[in-house]
Each structure stands twice: as C-alpha cells, then as structure tokens.
C-alpha cells in the first residue's frame, strides 16, 4: 500500500469514527446527566427512535433545523412518560425503561405507517450538509474527520465541554451531583431531588432525540422502523466507560466509534476467511477489555437506580 493510500484509509477511518460517535455521544451525554441525578433510563432507545421520527416528519415540513428541534422535543416527550413513572411514581426504573422502549418502537412504527403509508418513504428526507471549518479541515488525516462534519458533530463536542464545565462550576451542577449521590443531603440543603431528576431525565430525552434526529438528518436521510438498532443501550455502556464525566463520555463515544469503524474497515479490506461476525463483535469485546483494563471500581453515583 502506498503512503497516500494509507492516509486515505486512515482519514476515512477517522471520519467514520467521528460520524459513528456523534449520535452515541449525544445520547450518552444526556444519559450521563440523568445518571448523575441517580436515574438510569433504559428507555433511552425509545427517545432515540422518537427523535428520529420526529426529525423526519418535521424536516419535510420546516426543514432540517426544525427537524432537529422536533427530534429533541419528541425524545423529550418519551422521556416525560418515563419520568412520570420512574420519578413521579417511583416505579422501578428498569421495568419502566423496558416498557418505554417497547412503547416508543411500536408507536413510531405505527405513526410512521399512518403518516407515510405501509410502503414508507425512502431517502426523501432533507439532510444537513457538512460544515467545513476553513483551514482546519485541510489538515491532513484529521482535518476531514474533525473539521468537516455536519453541524451536529460540533454541537455534540460543544455540549460535552459545556456540560463538563456546568457540572463543576454551577450550583445547578452541584445540585445534580448531590441528588445522584445522596438525595437526603440534597433535601437537607434545600434542593428538590425529584424535580432535579425529572429535569435531568427530560434533558436526557432531548439529547437522545437529537441523537435520533442526527441518525436521519445528518446520516441516513431516511427513517426506518427500529433504526436506532440498540444505540440507547450502547450509550448507557458509554456513560460507564466515560466514568460519568462529560468529557470522558465524549472520549468513550469516540472509542466506541473507532471500534466500530475498525470493524467496517476490516470488512472493506476484504479479509476473506475471517467470519464477519467476529468483526461485528469487535466493538463490544474491545469495550469489555477497556473496562477491565481501567481496573479499579468505577465511581457510579451512589444512589443510581435507587427508588427512594
């Protein structure tokens, strides 16, 4: 292989890494906030698929920008249902999340068919173009990957940075962390933990909705039933991998994106003979190895998943 070929492949690999990581990072950053408030939302998958459909429907009417907003709102609506049960009624977070995912997958399929008919739409949704940062996008190897992406990628990076700052440098961020660590302490300090949790869950829903909208409006250009394809669950794993820190979560999303791109790259290298399933399993095995390697107990919020 020539040097330029290696550079091309490397560049394409990095581009793919960032692309794959973007929706995962968005959803995982939201979930990070929700888990910091002590709520684990298995219904994230539901918010992602709702965001994808919301984005699709709205983008056809009001354009791509409106599509993203609608996606966020749709994701938030699903999260509101989750919050009503898991926060409002203190129902078990895991059963509720499971039901919410089932609900959203079914509901989006139903609505999609009733809006677009049994045959559906294909590739007719407008998509956001790439936004090249002048100068930076010309850097060899990494330029295209990091500085010539749809706007949503930059927004995800920005959100990671802002969230990291917000959690450490605002009172609201402190209140969030206290709620997830020790709700009684939050109460004693005059914070209303349930309100904090409800808001965190809604934020996570909006972020997951954005992730879903990104899948459609910045990547696929179409809605397909079940297109979230388990990203909600991966995002939950990414939060742990990123140790509940926004920047860590963004890095973990990139790592997962890289593992996944490696998988597509290996297949595209035409390495016949190696069963493709082994490549497909690569990201998961890699995640496990990284988690095991980063030994030592991960500092999960102490009250994560607790009911009372």
């Amino acid at each position, binding site marked *: 292989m020539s040097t330029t070929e290696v550079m091309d492949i490397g560049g394409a690999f990095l581009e793919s890494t960032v692309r794959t990581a973007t929706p995962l990072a968005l959803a995982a950053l939201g979930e990070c906030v929700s888990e910091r408030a002590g709520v684990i939302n298995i219904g994230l998958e539901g918010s992602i698929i709702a965001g994808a459909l919301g984005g699709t429907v709205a983008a056809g009417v009001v354009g791509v920008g409106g599509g993203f907003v609608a996606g966020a709102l749709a994701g938030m609506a699903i999260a509101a249902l989750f919050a009503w049960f898991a926060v409002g009624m203190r129902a078990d977070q895991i059963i509720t999340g499971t039901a919410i995912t089932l609900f959203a997958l079914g509901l989006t399929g139903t609505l999609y068919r009733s809006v677009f008919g049994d045959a559906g739409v294909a590739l007719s949704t407008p998509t956001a173009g790439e936004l090249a940062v002048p100068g930076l996008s010309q850097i060899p190897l990494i330029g295209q990957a990091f500085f010539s992406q749809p706007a949503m990628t930059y927004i995800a990076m920005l959100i990671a940075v802002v969230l990291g700052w917000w959690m450490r440098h605002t009172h609201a961020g402190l209140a969030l962390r206290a709620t997830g660590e020790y709700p009684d302490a939050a109460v004693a300090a*005059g914070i209303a933990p349930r309100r904090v949790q409800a808001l965190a869950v809604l934020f996570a829903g909006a972020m997951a909705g954005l992730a879903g909208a990104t899948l459609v409006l910045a990547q696929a250009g179409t809605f397909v039933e079940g297109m979230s394809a388990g990203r909600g669950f991966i995002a939950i794993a990414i939060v742990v991998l990123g140790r509940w820190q926004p920047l860590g979560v963004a890095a973990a999303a990139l790592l997962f994106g890289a593992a996944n791109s490696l998988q597509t790259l290996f297949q595209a290298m035409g390495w016949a003979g190696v069963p493709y399933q082994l490549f497909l399993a690569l990201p998961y095995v890699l995640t496990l190895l990284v988690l095991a390697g980063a030994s030592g107990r991960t500092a999960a919020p*102490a009250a994560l998943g607790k009911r009372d």
Partner: protein
Amino acid sequence: MMGRGETAQSETTLLSLERLSRRFGDVQALDDASLRVRAGTVHALLGENGAGKTTLMRLVFGLLTPDGGTMLWRGASLRVRSPAHALSMGIGMVHQHFTLVPAMTVAENVALGGHGRFDREAAAARVREVGARAGLSLDPSARVDSLPVGAQQRCEIVKALARDVQLLILDEPTAVLAPSEARELLAWVRRFADAGNAVVLITHKLRDALAVADDVTVLHRGRSVLTMRAADTTEAHLANAMLGERTIAAPGDVDAETVVAAEHAAPALDDTAVAPTQAPETVLSLREVTWRDARGVVRVQRANMSVYRGEIVGVAAVEGAGQHELLRLLSGRLTPEQGTVVRPADVGFVPEDRHRDALLLDAPLFENVALRGAGLRGGRLDWAYFRRAADELISRFDVRATGAAAPARALSGGNQQKFVLGRELSGEPPALVVENPSRGLDFKATLAVQQALRAARDRGTAVVMYSSDLDEVLMLADRVYAMHAGLVNEVIPDRDAVGRAMLGTLADDAPESLGDTDRTPAGSSA
C-alpha cells in the same frame, strides 16, 4: 459556667410551637408538643428514643407537615414549605444522620443549594470565613469521605451557618464526637447563642444539656411533659420526666435514680466475677498484627493484645486511630496481612453502624437472627427454630417489637441496638467485640446495653469494647488499651493516663491532624 445570666436580657421569642401533632400510619409520633425558643438562648430538647424529638424538628425545617397545631416564627404564623424555605427564613438544621455528600468536597457541600455560578475559590473562602468566625476549622478542598467524623460534624455546622441562620437545630450532634470534640462544640454553641442567635439542642446526655442550655423541654411519647429554665432543674428531675409516669415492671427497666447513679459511676474495678485465683485463659490475641487499607495506608501497626476469659477490655481512641480495623481484626472480619490472630471460631460482633453493618433492614427479625453465622452454616434452615430464637431474644433483651416477623426497619434505633447485641450474645460465644454500643441510645437503653455486657462478662465471655465516650470505656472496662495512629498500648485505666495515650504526642487538634495523615502517603508508609 457560661454566662447564662446574661441571656436573660433578651425575651424575644424566635420560634414558638403550639400543640403540634403528627402521625405515621399507626404511630402517633407527636401528640401535643409545644416548644418556645427565645433569641439568644440554647434550648435543650430531651426525651427517650422515639419520643418524637426529631419529628418535631423536621416539622420546623419543612421536611414534614404537621397534622395539627400552630407554628410561629418571630411572632408571625409559620408554614414551612420546604427545607429551602426554612433556610431562606434563617432556620438551619444539622441532622442526626449526616446529610453530607461523601463524594464531594467540604466547599461543595457547604455551597449546596445555592444558585448561579459556583466559584470554587469563593466557596472555599466562605468555608474559611464562616469557620474562622465560628472557630470551626476545616479544609475546604478535602473530600468529605476522607474526613474523620468530628470534622464531618463541623462541616455540617458550617454548612448551616454559611446560610446565615438565626436558629440552628442540632440533632444529637455530640453522639459521634470524642469528649474533647464534644466540649469544643458545646462551647461554640454557647458562643453562637450569646451572639443573639438561638440553638435547639437535641441530646441524650443530661449533663451536657444542663451545662450548656438556658431552657429545657422534655418530650414523652410525643407530648411536652416539662419545660423550664435549666438552672431550676436537676438531672434526676429531667430523667423522671423523660420516663413519664409509667409504672415499670419489665426486667430491663430502671428508675431515674439508678440512671443518674449509673451515669456518674466510677470505673467498676471491684466487680470481676471470675475467680481471680484461676490462671487467666487467653481467648483472643493479636501478635505483631499489621493491616493496611486499600490505599496502602497502615491502619494497624504491629499490634499485640490479649483478652482473657471473663473480662471486659476497653479500647480508647480518637476517631481514625485504627480502632475500627483493630476491632475487625479481633473479630475475624478482617484478615491481617502480617502477624497472627488467635481467636475462637465464634466471635460475636456488634458494629457501630447497625443499619449498614449488622442488619437486613427489610428482612424480618427471625431472618436477622439467622444472619449470625450464616457463612458457616449448611443444608436446610430450620425457620421454626429461628422464630423461637427471635421471640426469646425479644423477651430476654426487652426489644420492643411487634414480633419475630417484624422487619428490622420497624424498630426504633435503640431497640435495633438491643436486638443486635442480644443476637450476638445469644449463641453464648466465647468472645464478643462491640463498637460504640450505646451510640444514639437514650439513658435507659444505654443502661440495658451496659448491663448486658457485664452479664456476658460474668458468664465468662471475653469482651472487647470500644466507645468514643471515654467515660463509658472507663466505667465498663477491666483493662484498657489505648490506640493512637495505628499503635496499640495497654494503659492503666485512669482518665488522665488513657487520655494522654489516646492523643499520643499530638496536641488538642488531634482529629484534624489525623485526617491529614490519612491523606498523606508519606506520613503513613513509615
């Protein structure tokens, strides 16, 4: 002792509670509780375990709403919507159980509940400023879970003061403190009140109440049964009020005279039950035992110790000296990395935090009985046997519970403690290790626990007992080991000797210095 006369200058009533009531399911926690707190005073709120003290104060702090009665704040009707509301009006509360976030720093905990931007530097400065004003020193950047309890208690108070409160509610603040720390805290409470503020002090230590308070209110079964100036009453009088006008027949019950007498009892050196002529039989021993925690800090260093049949060995130490680990090494709950531990297979163990370390709170009492020794048992469990054992334990140790099937959570703190102690004694183990056995207990329960320990000793059990209350150690122990910075030494059971040994070469700021040692690997790898 502290200018109580001067406070008479102010007669403004800050907080006034009239005939408050509150019930939880079947329990009428408050029935007819009234309380009047004057500005510039310390008001002691007394009562036995479960009397309703905490509940009454939770009404004031907005954590609960009353079923009936009225509350007045500075003469105006008071309806507290939430703790945030209470804080905004100048009412702060330090809870019986710490409400600090362990994973956050002191500054972050103190700043909790604010709005807008959180400035680490400003928050740290605030901690230092409030700390300096109140005479409570704290490292703002220390993580709370790395602090000894004394410092955590100071953090709780600074947290309340940083909100500029005029009324501070302290719910059993000295229960977790070493005597010297407790003295400091009470002195500060006095100064705080003298500055024109007010304090409600909940405590089980009548002596402390009388020493520091201007006014005293006693609750009994949710009613205020006595309110008067502290200067006009005595410990015996208060104890009588706390016990109410019940006629008591149960074996664990006592009258006020005994209680007060017991609290002032000198170290009991004369009542060793095992015949002194017999050669002492070693039941527990440590030889050159060393133990390090997960961070590599040496907590116990080359400890040597022997405990004989039929004696109570006291351990005296300030928080964080390594006594926590020492007791677990003795009881076999920790395995030493160096040295030898000789112990019988069955050692009873009563940890200080019974919620966390001794009970399955949601399981019925008979399952909690079965928990003891569960790791060694095999095959089928005979539940009928454990039910009988639980019933027997309930009656023998005067545990107030609806029966063997009641969940442990349903018991009040004192009864949980009696249950745990009873359980650990029930197998008549050759050795028993207990840690702060009377923390948070009212005097009656304390006495019952102390009696149980003596009775075990008299039956021949080798008892090791640690209490953060040095007086309790001296009162119960036949021999005393003092512990300081991981080093264990036997000392003569004399107040001054023990006090010096447990503080080592360090001066009075010992707890804070130890906290620093914990965090500095250099200081500990020696």
